[in-house]
């Protein structure tokens, strides 16, 4: 089976003599659904950052989508990111853009025509139940709604990989459910690889998944 992410003795840190993730080795299959758990401050976000190139490996090897992440060039990184959809804990929506344009962002970057983008955005806003909010601005929505916008944005360009960092962290039940349904849907229907960092794995999950736990800088799989 193809691997989307391969880590070999991967070490991550922000400063030189610090270790946040230490010599981790694991591989994530294409089309799989993966949960990453761990205590607060254990390095879950840091690991996820390394997957989208916001932090470079301190030591060891990391391949994402067949691309080596050490000393990656800007253009290669941009190319890779155009095939990844990220959902951030703090949403990271563009405040001065409407909901519609926010969802459209990955499509604008990939250079899709207005027509194709618009219909894709309408479809996604339907999935996240925000069709009637499309003209509003992010700060006019609730946290749950903003995260649903971010979810729609992450799916807009049919990415091969979705990375979600505590996407339902402190959301209401309804918004959480919408987001889990979409993540599961993308995985089962589009065969998108999904990697989710979370505090607790929801019981409603029906797809088969792998579960990694981070503890003291070590990553191990929980059967």
């Amino acid at each position, binding site marked *: 089976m193809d691997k989307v992410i391969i880590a070999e003795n991967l070490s991550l840190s922000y400063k030189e003599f610090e270790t946040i993730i230490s010599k981790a080795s694991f591989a994530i299959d294409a089309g799989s659904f993966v949960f990453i758990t761990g205590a607060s401050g254990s390095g879950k976000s840091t690991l996820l950052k390394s997957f989208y190139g916001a932090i470079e490996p301190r030591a060891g090897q990391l391949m994402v989508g067949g691309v080596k992440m050490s000393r990656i060039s800007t253009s290669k990184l*941009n190319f890779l*990111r*155009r095939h990844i959809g*990220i959902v951030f804990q703090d949403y990271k929506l*563009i405040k001065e853009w409407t909901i519609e344009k926010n969802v459209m*962002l990955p499509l604008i*970057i990939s250079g899709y025509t207005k027509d194709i983008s618009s219909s894709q955005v309408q479809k996604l806003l339907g999935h996240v139940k925000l069709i009637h909010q499309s003209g509003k601005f992010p700060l006019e929505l609730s946290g749950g709604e903003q995260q649903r916008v971010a979810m729609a944005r992450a799916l807009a360009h049919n990415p091969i990989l979705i990375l979600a960092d505590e996407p339902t962290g402190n959301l209401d039940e309804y918004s959480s459910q919408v987001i889990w349904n979409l993540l599961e849907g993308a995985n089962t229907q589009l065969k998108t690889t999904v990697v989710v960092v979370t505090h607790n794995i929801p019981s409603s999950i029906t797809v088969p998944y792998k579960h990694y736990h981070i503890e003291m800088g070590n990553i191990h799989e929980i059967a």
Partner: protein
Amino acid sequence: MKSLKNHISLIIALFTVLFSVQIYVAVDRTIEAYENRLKNDYSIIVVSNKTLSAAEFKAMDSIIERSESIATDQVLERLQGEMSKKNLDLLKLTLPKFYRLYLSRFPTPQEISKLQKRLQKHSSIERVEGYAQSHDTVYKLMLLFKDVVQIFSISIAAVTSLLILKEMRLWQFQHAERMSIMALFGAPVWLRSAVLFRLAIVDAIIATIVLCLAFFIIEQYGWMDLLLRTVGISIELFDFVNDAVRSLLIALGVSIVLTLMIVIGNEEEE
């Protein structure tokens, strides 16, 4: 529109730069026109015991544009009745040659004294007569005014640079978040900063249009023109083709350099 205030301060800053450049250009143009007028009135009379060609004069000092020999025949004719033909012929032979020299530009006092010394050094030249008084008060005032304008424009440029720099920080701050989010989705630098460049170009165009309007109004009222005509000068304060194009280029240059600095600064932060 929230960012309208920021637009206006950049437009005002750009306009100020353009306006002071234009004032400097106009003053320069005025002085040049005045020098040209003075130059035509200005000449030097040279008395020589030998015939000197225009080329010989030019070789003495490059500021000499042309020479004109002053005809002595008229004077001699007038003396015809009073002198005998023999004496007249003798006089004709001994009479020196008179030349009027025209200069290629209006000379500075230093240039005049240098020129006079050079002419006098020539073996055949007997006398040099210049017009020292031609450095009139108006001209001296104009030169003073030019200096004042120069200092003024430089200080305006300095103050405006500070203003633009402050504006830049604001822009950087305002756009940094959007630009970093776009980067997370793989937007190349040019796409991330496209909005900034668009704003910069629009502001440059608006500043140029405002400048054109300002000079259009000044010319409509015509008081500047009237003022200049009293000293015998007619110049174009603002050329609506050449000056407008130059101003637009300056405005675009300044605002694009500014945007590039923001973009590069932003890149380094990542």
